Every structure is written in C-alpha cells, then in structure tokens.
C-alpha cells in the first residue's frame, strides 16, 4: 500500500488531535507542578522561595533608600525594619547607632569610595513608602506562604498610604493562601478597627485569630507569642472602649501570660478593676 505525503500528514494530524483530546484529562494529573496556579511556582518550583526572600529584602533596602548592609557587613542578619515598623516599633538613638554598619573608614579607598555610596540612614516618608510595594507584591507571588509579606504590605498600605481597601484585599489574598494565620487575622482586625471603625468585625476577626493561635502546636505557639499578645491586648482595649471591663480584664490577663511587660499590663488591669468596682459606665447621651 502506498500513501501520498498529504495523506500521511492528514493521518498523523488526526492521530495527534485524537490523542490530545483523549489524554487531556489524564495529563493534568501526571505532574503536580502543572497543577500550580502560580506561574512562578511552575517555573521555579521551591526555588522561588529564595527569590521571594530576596525581593522581601529589596523592599527593606528601598525603605532605607539604599543604605543597607551587604552580606559582608555587620548587622546584615538583623530583623528587617519594615517588619519591626509594622509591629509599631519606633527607632531610638541606640537603634540608630547599631545600624551604622559602615563604621569609620578603613582606609583612603574606603573613605573616598563613600562619596559614591549612600551613607545616610533614612526611611521613606511622605507617601514615598509606596516604592516598597512592587517588591512585596513580587515576594507574595513567588512565595504565597510568606506571611510577613502580607502583614507588612497591608501595614504600609493602611498606615502610610491611606489605602485600607487595597490593604484588605492583600490580606484577604494572604488569608486564602494561609487560612490558619493569626498574624494576617490580627492585621485584618486592625483595618476594621482603625480604618473602618467597625468594632464588631474587628472583635470577630481577632477572636478568630486567638482561636487559630490556640490550635497551633506548642512549639509554634512559643515562637509566635508576640502575635497572641498583640491580639489579646487589642481585644482588651476594644472591650474597654465598649465598656466591657470584665472581658477586657480577662484579655489583659491572657496577654500577661506571654508578655515580657506583664507589670505594665497589671497597671491597666488594676485601673479596670477600680472602674468595675465603681459600677457600669454611664451610657452616652442620645443625640436628638
């Protein structure tokens, strides 16, 4: 039997199409990588987490306008300031001094070379904080399980750029990728409490955060005590503002168990206990 080239081509095309349509369903199950809904995940596999860390560091570099220690300098491994800033930590003079990683010039080459390097420790301000966002977005795309990316990004969007809607959307995305993260729930609660002034939703979200924390294994709880303290203290303040002093005292007592500043919390508990003993707070007068 002799087949013309065109007939051969037609037969091969028909075969290819038949196989493609037949195998499409099963081919999806062959590789776990093909299931990835993230382009970066498919391209880099787990190696993408390395890039994500690098991009997260880039956000910190931008926050310092380029004044940043290299891997060869002292202080390169310290906690990133965008993280501590998102926890409300303000720098004092000692911190500033610690971050002078350059020190005195080592020789004339180093001294002259500093003319061409950024040698001033500054932080982005006046809405220029937006410049760190592309790196956080990329870090989140590369490693959706890196929780700090969402909390730091949302903090700067909400606190410095007045973009609570974008912050909430970013956190919701983080929550979809990390449903058990009490850190993301805490930050989400701050948006409801501080930006939207929706105390009920803030309370619900923070209480859910506490539940997620309690469900964590013991070792993990020990490493992430700070978030529990933040959740409990914020819930305590929320209950105080609502006049629920007994609940507020309970939350302060819970926070005391993990807080390094238990004495300061005790002062607040004492104040609340006096208020509680004095009777229920006066309800605000109704507006006409």
């Amino acid at each position, binding site marked *: 039997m002799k087949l013309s080239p065109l007939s051969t081509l037609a037969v091969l095309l028909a075969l290819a199409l038949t196989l493609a349509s037949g195998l499409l369903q099963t081919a999806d199950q062959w590789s776990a990588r093909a299931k990835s809904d993230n382009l970066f995940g498919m391209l880099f596999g787990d190696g993408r987490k390395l890039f994500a860390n690098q991009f997260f560091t880039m956000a910190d570099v*931008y926050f310092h*306008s*380029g004044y940043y220690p*290299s891997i*060869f*300098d002292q202080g390169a491994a310290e906690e990133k300031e965008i993280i501590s800033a998102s926890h409300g930590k303000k720098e004092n003079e000692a911190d500033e001094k610690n971050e002078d990683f350059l020190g005195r010039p*080592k*020789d004339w*080459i*180093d001294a*002259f*070379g500093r*003319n*061409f*390097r*950024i040698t*001033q420790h500054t932080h982005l301000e006046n809405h220029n904080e*937006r*410049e760190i*966002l*592309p*790196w956080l*977005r990329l870090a989140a795309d590369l490693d959706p399980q890196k929780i700090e990316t969402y909390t730091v990004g949302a903090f700067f*969007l909400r606190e410095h*750029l007045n*973009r609570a809607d*974008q912050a909430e959307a*970013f956190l919701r995305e983080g929550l979809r990728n990390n449903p058990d993260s009490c850190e993301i729930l805490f930050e989400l609660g701050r948006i409801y409490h501080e930006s939207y002034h929706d105390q009920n939703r803030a309370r619900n979200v923070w209480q859910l955060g506490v539940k997620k924390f309690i469900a964590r294994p013991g070792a993990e709880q020990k490493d992430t005590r700070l978030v529990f303290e933040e959740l409990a203290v914020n819930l305590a303040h929320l209950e105080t503002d609502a006049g629920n002093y007994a609940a507020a005292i309970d939350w302060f007592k819970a926070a005391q168990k993990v807080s390094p500043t238990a004495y300061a919390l005790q002062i607040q508990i004492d104040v609340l206990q006096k208020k509680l003993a004095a009777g229920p707070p006066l309800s605000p007068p109704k507006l006409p």
Partner: protein
Amino acid sequence: MSKIFALAGVVIKELYRRKDFYVLFVLTALLTLAAGMVNFFHDDKIVRYVKDICLLLIWVSALVIAVVTTARQIPAEREARTIFPLLAKPVSRAQVIAGKFLGCWLATGVALVVFYFFFAAVTGSKEQIWPWGAYLEAVWMHWAMLAIVIAMVLLGSIYFAAPSSTSTITLIVVAGILLLGTHLKIIALQQPEPMQTILTIGYFAMPHLEWYDLRDFVVYDMGLVPLRAVGLATLYAAAWTGIFLLLAWLGFRRKNLTT
C-alpha cells in the same frame, strides 16, 4: 592626532553598522516599558523599581557593547590582514592603539547618551521630574568607568588568543570588581595569612570600578555627588586608562602580527 581620529571614526561607523547596539537597546526598551506598565496596588506613582530595572539593563548593555566591540578590534584587523596596509599608511602602533581606544570609547559614549535619554524620557514621564544634574553625573561617571574597561579589554586582546576569551575574562573581572570591590578589604580581614595579605594587595592594586556606579543616587533621588569627588574619580579613571593603554602598547609593539 588626525590619524587617531580617522581610526576612531572607522570604529564608530562599525558600531552603528553592527546589530549589537540596536538589539540591546530594543531589549532594554521593551523590558523597561513592560516593567513600567505593571500596575501594583492601583498606584501609578510607583516609579523607583522601573528606574532600578532600566539602569541595571543600561549597565549590562553598555558593558557588553564596550567589551564585545573592543575585544574584536585588533584580532579582526589581524585576521583580515588589514593591519598591514594600516601600519603601512604610515600609522604607528601606538596610534593604532590610541585610535582603537578612542573609537570604542566615543562609540560607547554615543550609545550611553541614547540609553540615558531613553531612561530620562521613561522615568520623567512617570514622575514628572528631570534631575538633569544627577543624570549628567551618572552618565559621566559611567563613561569614565567604561574608559578603564575599554583600555583593559584592548590590553587583553593583545595577549589573549581570541576575542571570545578576552570578552569572557574581562566581563568576569569587571563583574567581580563591581560586586566585591568595596567589600574586598572586609573579606581580606576575615581570612588567615597569607590570603589576607594577597587579598589586601589586590584591594589596593585593582581599579575601583564600583565608585563609578551612581545608580543608587539616581534611583533613590539622593541628589548630587560632590563635584570635587567626581573630578578626582575622573583623574583616577584617566590614570588607570593610561596604565592599561601603555601596557597594551608595550605588548602590541613587540607583537608578531603574521602568526
């Protein structure tokens, strides 16, 4: 001097006849424009990452253009045997070296102007400011650094067998200096002897190309570098360029061109 300029003119013509520059420029432009079009959190005022990416591409492209263009100059003349009529003009071997250097340096200068003009246009259209002083300093320092690199490549092209090996070795050396130049002393201090002494000598003996990288000043809007420092750095670049050209001439003077 006219012979040197005539030789330089030929090199410049060669650059715009070859496709290297156009390919790299189009690639830089496409990647920058693509990066600039990405929208992060619906905020169209974010611009520094575009500057960062664009300047990195400009640095890589300019380095590739300078190294590749220079590395093939003398080997190509020898291979095509056009070096003999050139030297019979009469043009001295020192003039050939000077002409080739000047041509490559001016050609990369023209490429740099085009690249930075594109950079200013793209970033200026986003943030509506044009800090021309900072741009001029950045271009000048970049061009001064390329003078050292071009002289280094010319020297390499005299001693190494092929343009490819010259290009590869020079790119590795330049990248090494740019990445580690500032930190070499710190690394040296952490090493046991005799490595500590060797690295310290290397630190003082190498051309500090990293000084000429003013990208951070442009990206983070940190103003101008003092003009006195720029002037001294220019003198330093001139000194290193002179050293490499002199060494290249010494090698080329005794070079047997027939093999």
